[in-house]
């Protein structure tokens, strides 16, 4: 209830934002339909072209201003195109509305009245300039940094060698993701989600999590942050900033061995498509033992509450 009130007050509520955005969009659409329905009843017919233009402008404003942090241009462009397609499908869904939509355009093209002739004249003069300006704008050299198509999670190698040992990524398992009897278990993390790693009598899994946590806070948290959200104290010295483990798109999408490989080999060990030069992550195999790397990975999963990906 509290959450709904917060949402209604126009706040983006942490944890509910994606679904809140969808609800808002739906609400706006309904409001839009209702307004024009009401106007129509009152006898004020708003031309479809005007309606469509209004809706389109509103969507642009919504995606630009409402959603925070700002969405990159590429995604906004995709959204705008989608909205345009949707608007086209809507106005052309029946002959009646399609004709209504086209009427002003044809009127301008044909120049039936003095006003439309004027508009036509202006547009004929302006159109080449507009095209010219757009071409000029897209071609002119700019000082912006180029867009990079960085594959953040590239295809890993089949196996990786750390401290002389070969780990086959597809078959290796964390030696510390173990149940109380010391056997590898996918379920153990679920079992101890709320466990207390500081408990003296904690099961082995929790003990390893504690050790991993100690390693994390001695080595990793400077960049990856106390909350593992990639906002450590040095984070903003880097570009791009360090990975945010609490995001659903990072370790939650990866196998534990993949993370192990990344930690052990660091940014320098990335394949070319992942731009090894764009990451300052050290190859931790030079500082940590194999066991320590496994433990820290174990801790990252436990702390964020995500589960490593498994291939069914």
């Amino acid at each position, binding site marked *: 209830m509290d959450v709904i009130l917060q949402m209604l007050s126009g706040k983006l509520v942490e944890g509910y934002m994606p679904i809140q955005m969808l609800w808002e969009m739906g609400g706006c659409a309904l409001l839009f339909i209702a307004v024009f329905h009401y106007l129509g009843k009152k006898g004020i017919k708003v031309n479809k072209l005007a309606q469509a233009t209004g809706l389109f402008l509103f969507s642009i404003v919504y995606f630009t201003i409402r959603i925070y942090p700002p969405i990159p241009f590429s995604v906004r462009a995709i959204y705008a195109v989608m909205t345009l397609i949707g608007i086209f499908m809507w106005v*052309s869904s029946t002959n009646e509305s399609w004709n209504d939509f086209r009427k002003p355009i044809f009127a301008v093209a044909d120049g039936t009245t003095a006003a439309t002739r004027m508009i036509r004249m202006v547009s004929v003069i302006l159109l080449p300039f507009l095209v010219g300006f757009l071409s000029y704008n897209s071609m002119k050299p700019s000082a912006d940094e180029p867009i990079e198509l960085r594959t953040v999670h590239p*295809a890993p190698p089949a196996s990786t060698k750390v401290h002389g040992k070969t780990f086959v990524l597809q078959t290796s398992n964390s030696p510390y993701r173990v149940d109380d009897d010391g056997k590898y278990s996918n379920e153990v993390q679920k079992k101890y989600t709320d466990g207390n790693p500081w408990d003296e009598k904690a099961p082995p899994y929790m003990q390893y999590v504690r050790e991993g946590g100690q390693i994390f806070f001695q080595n990793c948290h400077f960049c990856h942050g106390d909350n593992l959200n990639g906002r450590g104290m040095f984070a903003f010295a880097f570009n791009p900033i360090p990975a945010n483990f609490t995001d659903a798109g990072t370790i939650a*999408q990866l196998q534990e061995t993949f993370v192990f490989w990344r930690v052990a080999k660091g940014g320098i060990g990335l394949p070319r498509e992942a731009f090894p030069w764009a990451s300052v992550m050290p190859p931790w195999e030079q500082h940590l033992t194999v066991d320590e790397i496994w433990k820290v990975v174990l801790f990252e999963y436990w702390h964020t509450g995500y589960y490593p990906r498994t291939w069914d």
Partner: protein
Amino acid sequence: MATLNKQAQKKIWAFLALGTFVGLLLLPLFLSLPAGASGGAPAPAASTAPPVAQPADAKPVEKSRDIWYKTEGPVVGAPAPKTTDGPKDYPRYNFESRVLLWVANQQHLYYGSFVLAVPIFCMVIEYLGIITKDKALARKYDQLAYDFIKISLTAYSLTAILGGILVFTYLTLYPTFFGYLASIFRPVMHTYALLFVAESGTLYIYYYGWDRMREGFLKWVHVSMSVVLNMIGTVLMMLANSWIAFMQSPAGVDDQGRYLGNIWHVIHTTLWNPINVHRIIGNMAFGGGVVAAYAAYRFLTAKTDEERAHYDWMGYVAMFIGVCFLIPLPFAGYWLMREVYAYRQQMGITLMGGLLAWLFIIQAVMIGSLFLTTNYYLWQGLERMRGAERYQKYIKYMVFVLITCFIVWLTPHTMVMTPGELKAMGGQQHPVLGNYGVMSAKNGAINTIITTTVLSFIMYQRGNKVPTVKWAPMGNAFLFGMFTVAYINIIGLAIYGYYIPANVRVGLSVPQVATTLSCLFIGVLLNSIMLKGAKELGPTAWGQVSVRSQYALIMLATAFTWMMGLMGYIRSSVRLFWHVNEIMRDNSPWAFTHTIGFAANMISFNVLFFWITILFVFWLGSLGIKKAPVAASVGQKVPVPAGSH
């Protein structure tokens, strides 16, 4: 009763004739297979006869291990040649050989797929024509089937010509590689050629015998022949698939690429069957698209109302077939992907998360736009029916749902942004949109899109009809309830997916897909039953449909073609720098992987080249028409295929 018996007798004779025919036609295949296996494998013989004959200098047969099946076999072939960049292995023009091969291959494939798919429709439609009791309707079906095969006939010779061009391109530009493939697939290639002869013969008899075999028993033989035609066609395709499957996931050779004498292993590589299934279904969808485009072309050039009505109907049927096969396509694709992951995980990740992942984003765009276009076509179809106006007011809500889902579906996992935007956003992941980028959201979105498409279709079915069965209110309530529950279920599971481990999450797609499919089957079925004997508010006026709807068909056809080119490119380029994966390396200067943009340009070129030529074929076809198609008396009951399924 007597007539029925006669019918049954006819059927039996037809099937017997068919069986013999099939047997005779497939004989070369059966003969060559064991011959290939034993002829290529002197090993068993080696242990009996030859050593006795010449025991002195009989070399011990070297054995080696199959790279995939892990069985041992005698080494028969030479190892895969190690090529070097130069005119010996890679003779060339002053141009990228790979691009030339790309064009030749793709054109051959387009025509081949079309030629393979159309006879399958023909078979189904001709059969429908035979079993339909309504005489006028039967004639209409028959004419439609004939129209279909007529289009494919011109395309057939083009397919053969393009096949020849393809082989020459291989021989002249990649002689070493092609020589290696040919040395392994020797018997398969000959079988292929022989089967092609059989296919041609059957096709010509089938086409030119259409009028002579019009009545009675002969008609049954005729329709049986289409079965034979399709069987040969499918075997042909599967043989051709074995080559590409071998290139991608080789088997039957050892790790140096030496052939081990078992031709079945070479054909039956791990990706062969998934590719077969995927291709058959894909061909059907593609064929539907091309025929729909043909119908749209004829509709737009039609001079009379009758013609317009006929081609409107034809376009609808073709679109329907295309979309019917579009729906299982993702499942076949999923199977193929699973097998790719099982074969080499790296290959799977290169596809889905690595180098080629962006191409999958383009594919996502296309899948979404295919569904949008289908919906649009159905909505436009409401214009044909008097009384369908009452459904038009719902279109705007459906547009909203579809576009919203599409937006979620298209939100990329890795966003393209300038470093400045990256900083403003505070990290690679966006706190709101980032959640749309993961599998859970995508599953929810695409299932919602498909369910909405089903809803559109049900709406279209009802168009001008009002159910009169007694339980209509209950049926309506049930349909309403089912779709509501379906939407809640799909979206609810999508949200739930964020809170559980990945291995469980993967399992969530099963209930989601099950929901969508049960909506599809139960909804359409129930609706059809409800509409039995329904009151019609007005006739379905075939031909009275907007020009926009025909453009939607063209859009579907173009998008199918483009998607086929794209997916083919992805499947082929995932081998990266290998001719034969992990066995024969591509040492030509073109072993690199092109940029997405370049690939998109090439695919566009191929698509447009195909369409320019096939428009020419259509035009040729329209030259040969002397009389207008059998005029379907307007206002007569016209079949809607959905009702009969």
